[in-house]
């Protein structure tokens, strides 16, 4: 069972890293939002794996995952809404062009 845990954790870590990579490098704003979801899903995987095969298995992980899914959905909703507003202003979803706020 420990090996099961390890494989889930590895998968989650890989997903998380892909997500992070996407957030940092992707130019399309929608893809960036997708990448964040990917990271959150990696976490959910982690939580559920721990709740089943963890050192001290308990249901709390699943509950946590449920909440995190909801929250992720809300976040995605707001993210998309903001992106729509931004698109209406700029007519692009390329994050490189979001540079009106200068330092």
């Amino acid at each position, binding site marked *: 069972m420990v090996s099961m845990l390890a494989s889930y954790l590895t998968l989650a870590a890989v997903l998380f890293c892909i997500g*992070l990579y996407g957030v940092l490098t992707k130019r399309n704003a929608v893809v960036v939002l997708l990448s964040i979801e990917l990271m959150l899903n990696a976490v959910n995987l982690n939580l559920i794996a721990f709740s089943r095969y963890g050192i001290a298995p308990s249901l709390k992980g699943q509950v946590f995952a449920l909440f995190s899914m909801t929250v992720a959905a*809300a976040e995605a909703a707001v993210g998309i809404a903001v992106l729509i507003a931004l698109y209406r*202003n700029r007519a692009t979803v390329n994050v490189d062009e979001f540079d009106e706020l200068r330092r």
Partner: protein
Amino acid sequence: MITTLTWSDSWYLAPEIVLAAFTIALAVLDLALPRRVGRDVIGWGALVGLVLAGVFVCWHIHDLNVWKDAGKDAFRNVLGGSWRVDNFGNLLKLAFLGATALIVLASLGTVRDREVPIKGEFYYLILPAVIGAMAMSSSGDMLTMYVGMELLSITTYVLVAVRKKSGQSAEAAFKYVVTGGTASAFVLYGMSFLYGVTGTTHLASIGQALPGALADYRAMIYVAFFLMIVGFALKLALAPFHAWAPDVYQGAPTPVTAFLAVVAKGAAMAMVYRIFLNTAQFATGDDSQVRDDLFLALGVLAAAAMIVGIAGALKQQNAKRLLALSGVANAGILLVPLSLDLTNLHSSLFSEFVYYLAAYVLMNIGALAVLTLVSRSSGHEQLSAFAGLYHRAPWTAAAMTALLCSLAGLPITAGFYGKLYILFATVQTGEYWLAAILLGTTVVSYYVYFSFIRQMYMRGGENEPSVRMTIPTGVVIWVCAAGSVALGIFPKPVLDWVDGLFSLTTDFLAR
């Protein structure tokens, strides 16, 4: 066993329930009111809700005091310990509620259609954000904390984007969503490991389980905490994770900027304090390696934030970005007390934190309120908008001077004492390097903040339009300025009060 909410629990949740009820009522009111009716009434409603919630918090404080006098524990676990009513939470809640009330009041005077086109939303979305902040400071469980954090984050995403027609606002909001989402992912990822190691999300239980787990799962514990640190650093805009802050603060409507700078930051800080004191403080005795590393990391982050924040602010010409970067530095300062060893000598970290937070609330909100006024009369938010403010509005200039002195940490202001206590703690615990950095950045910050003063007093401004003051904004500015000075001249009552209420053993060690 299923633990459900009971009627008696709802008493402990009264402040949050009140706010939620007001949110709903105001939202409905906003929908029901015809278009031509001004939305100020909703703002006043929000203010009433905040005050009412504050009254309930005070009531709780009173209750806790009564229990304490009766020899009972001065805290209550609600909902199976996922919610704690203790004075750590209560004091921070008061700070958040007060700050939000000031922001709402200030915006009642200044919010124009150009600034926030849908004012109703602005007023009633700020309330759930406060609920989130309160949840973050009052939870005993990572799950509740996380939900609170997201409640705060998501509402603030919307608030930042509330100027629908403005590309800047939307751009800021998008950046905020991306960093905020990434930050939550990091925090959550860290939490998931912590949960995996201990099998629980309840902070106190984690604290109990961790010493046992430490032997076998050391690496995972490191991973958990460092992921969380990264996440929180992103949330708090600590350097080197602060790049988003100036953009977001600049793009957001000024009242929202104030909210982000003060309440969002304070709440995240509260969460950091709770999590780290409840869990990471565990490894006393033989194996303090993990703890030392973690707190060192926090110290390094704090130092980096102070340095980078002030260095970035040095060349900043946009007043809002400047204040954002100063916020980065101030977040660093707020983190310092936590990063210090909790020893016999130094055990007043909470007083230090909360005092500086109060100071920060006052000075930042005050400064941003002045900025709103000034930028409205000048039409832009550059530093030069302040040119000759002394001639245009001498009293406002004077208030701003007091606020800036507090920001810079000059005596005798709240900012000065806040820094002094924290400095004293660093010296007490022998972290001289941190003290040196804190002092060094303070000196540089003189230059930064005095650039406002130079503009106000030493540049001509006779030709600029005069500044139109509204009563609510004026009240806020003067409350903040007077509060900054008063806290500086009489810090004792506040600190005595905080010290009397807060107790490390009850608030963090009692299960």
